């Protein structure tokens, strides 16, 4: 921001606008990002062209350094790119866990060689990453993980099991926490990268209450991770994992912001399904109060996100407001899911079939899947522990992190 005055920013906006006009395929206008759900998809030529065009510019990861394939933009310029995409009805085709969590972490902790190898394909949207963190016996107490990596000179041999590995069935690479020292808990964990396309990796999708899901069980039987793909020091993976979880949490809180269903604001749905009384108020006073309370809290939540960002920039150092974001955001989203169902009444209970509109079916699946928001990425209870101990300085009797 410092090196650009207002006039230059306007010039940049003009440049972005004409580039989007020249490169964004009209057929994709207003369409959601096909990669947003971390599902497999067979891209159309237009989708493929748009991904490549944005990937080459680095504008899908606008603030990442140019040297590794990012856009090298200031945050003010990045907002302009975002704004111009939105104006044209264009989605950002570059996304997923590589962008949200792994990339920022590797940029911070990776060696030059690691960054040069792994970051550019993320910026171009070529490689899908999955996260090998949780295990059947290591959920909220993540550091008790058991998946073992044995040192074999130039590589590690990995044996064990991960769970809730989102998108593992479509992933090309895995960033994974493994145990390299069994005599210590947190200090015995290392952070390694390996390809999913190898014989020692087996993936089984897990059906959830919402039906099919991107979650998987992932089994490692003598899987190989090369030494060059150890991130940070041996047994020094926990620090990196915690940093990555911060990226995950800040990413998760932003997810599903505009949620009602089918992208339609909840207030609009309520007007359609419930109607207004003669005074122009929702014809369900109880719902109206809960709806407006949620809407106001959501607005305050967004204001807090902006404030945290400005404080981080202006006051040097991260804002304490950041720590509350995951719990506050996910709880508000879950309330909205519940209200979407309530607003639709019986039409909000369909599982499948022609009796229901697409937005109605999506509301049901969204409601069920949304229950995961307060469980994954650090459960609501773990988040409350973090706030009370790390931010408020209350004593930690469990000594757990």
């Amino acid at each position, binding site marked *: 921001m410092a090196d650009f005055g207002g006039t230059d920013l306007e010039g940049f906006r003009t440049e972005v606008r004409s580039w989007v006009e020249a490169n964004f395929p009209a057929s994709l206008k207003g369409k959601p990002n096909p990669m947003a759900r971390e599902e497999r998809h067979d891209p159309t030529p237009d989708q493929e062209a748009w991904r490549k065009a944005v990937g080459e510019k680095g504008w899908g990861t606008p603030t990442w350094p140019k040297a590794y394939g990012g856009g090298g933009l200031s945050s003010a310029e990045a907002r302009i790119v975002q704004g111009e995409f939105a104006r044209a009805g264009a989605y950002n085709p570059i996304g997923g866990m590589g962008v949200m969590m792994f990339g920022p972490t590797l940029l911070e902790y990776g060696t030059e060689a690691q960054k040069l190898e792994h970051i550019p394909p993320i910026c171009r949207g070529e490689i899908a990453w999955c996260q090998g963190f949780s295990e059947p016996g290591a959920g909220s107490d993540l550091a008790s993980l058991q998946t073992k990596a044995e040192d074999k000179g130039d590589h590690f041999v990995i044996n064990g099991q991960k769970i809730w590995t989102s998108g593992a069935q479509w992933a090309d690479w895995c960033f994974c926490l493994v145990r390299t020292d069994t005599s210590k808990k947190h200090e015995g964990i290392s952070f390694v990268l390996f390809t999913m396309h190898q014989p020692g990796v087996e993936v089984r999708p897990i059906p959830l209450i919402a039906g099919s899901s991107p979650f998987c069980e992932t089994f490692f039987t003598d899987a190989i991770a090369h030494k060059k793909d150890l991130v940070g020091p041996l047994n020094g993976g926990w620090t990196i994992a915690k940093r990555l979880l911060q990226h995950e949490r800040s990413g998760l809180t932003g997810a599903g912001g505009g949620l009602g269903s089918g992208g339609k604001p909840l*207030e609009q749905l309520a007007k359609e399904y419930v109607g207004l009384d003669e005074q122009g108020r929702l014809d369900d006073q109880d719902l109206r109060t809960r709806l407006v309370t949620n809407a106001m809290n959501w607005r305050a939540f967004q204001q807090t996100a902006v404030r945290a960002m400005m404080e981080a920039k202006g006051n040097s150092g991260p804002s304490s407001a950041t720590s509350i974001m995951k719990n506050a955001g996910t709880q508000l989203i879950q309330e909205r899911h519940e209200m979407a169902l309530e607003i639709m009444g019986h039409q909000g209970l369909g599982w499948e079939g022609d009796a229901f509109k697409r937005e109605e079916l999506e509301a049901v699946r969204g409601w069920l899947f949304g229950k995961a928001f307060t469980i994954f990425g650090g459960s609501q209870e773990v988040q409350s522990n973090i706030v009370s101990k790390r931010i408020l300085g209350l004593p930690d009797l469990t000594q757990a992190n």
Partner: protein
Amino acid sequence: MAVLTEEQSMLRDAAKSWVQEKSPVTAFRKMRDSGVEIGYDVAAWNEMAEMGWAGVIIPEEYGGSNFGYLSLGLVLEELGRTLTASPLIASGLGAASALILGGSESQKGEWLPKIADGSVVAALAVDEGPHHKPEKVEATVSGGKLTGKKVFVLEGMAANVFVVSAKEGGKIELYLVKADDAGVKRTKLSLADSRGAANVEFNGAAADKLTGGAELLEKVLDRARAGIAAEMLGAATQAFEVTLDYLKTRVQFGQVIGSFQALQHRAAKMFTELELARSAVEAALTAIDNDSPDVPELVSLSKAKMGDTFHLISNEMVQMHGGIGMTDAHDAGFYLKRARAAEAAFGNQAYHRDRYAKIQGY
């Protein structure tokens, strides 16, 4: 905390140190015990006025510093921490806004310099019943004389001049009425929060009209609401910090009670609500400074969110302190009482939720 300019940081620091040194909660307790009729300590108010706080939003040509509403909010937040009682919201914020936005040159010239130097206290007289309903006005003006009853007028006993809502020809307008007019009769209210308030009867009192009608009234109220939300932010923050400190020192079952997860998670909840409320309050004050079109919804958001938050924290302050929190010797009760009075002032949470929904079209 918003990112502040150098002047704003200096103003806040000055307020912080004055409040800590000159106006701790013990000063409020002393004022309450003295039973002073106007509901604040005049000497303390004079010091505040000398430091320029009564003129923070008033233009320089009328003796103020024209620092804006966010700046005044910073002062109010610090005063709120120790429950400092003063007519700053009624006079230097509410009535001053009415004059700045709706006063003629001569009205401004007559009143603003005196409000800015603290020699005149002005108060808003806008409510007529137990609930805030500014659009419901029975008071009337005809031939320049105002007749009607106003209730819960904050700083009503101290006021030298009132800004009164009344109808003339069926239309709501705001009027200046001098307190020493023979047609003005006021009755002191003794309220739970020990702050100054009065019911005021106007009986053909001389009324000097401001320009702007119902729209001006809403603008003035929004500024007062945002200001009281800032005071509540300070009070709630202090109440939370005092409670957190108690959780870290009170020992039961051989350990500090703050080590119990049941209390930790409630503390985390309070902290979360406080962070959200702070954002809403700062956003509302900033919107007023920018004269942004979404001032009404942002102000309603700030007042409702801050009201819910102070409500929660003031209850938890008593509960978490246990028996000691129930005693008059402890400060927890002061925060609890102030919370409810501030919640009700210029529209409680229900009022502002309803208003927000209406603005959003449902």
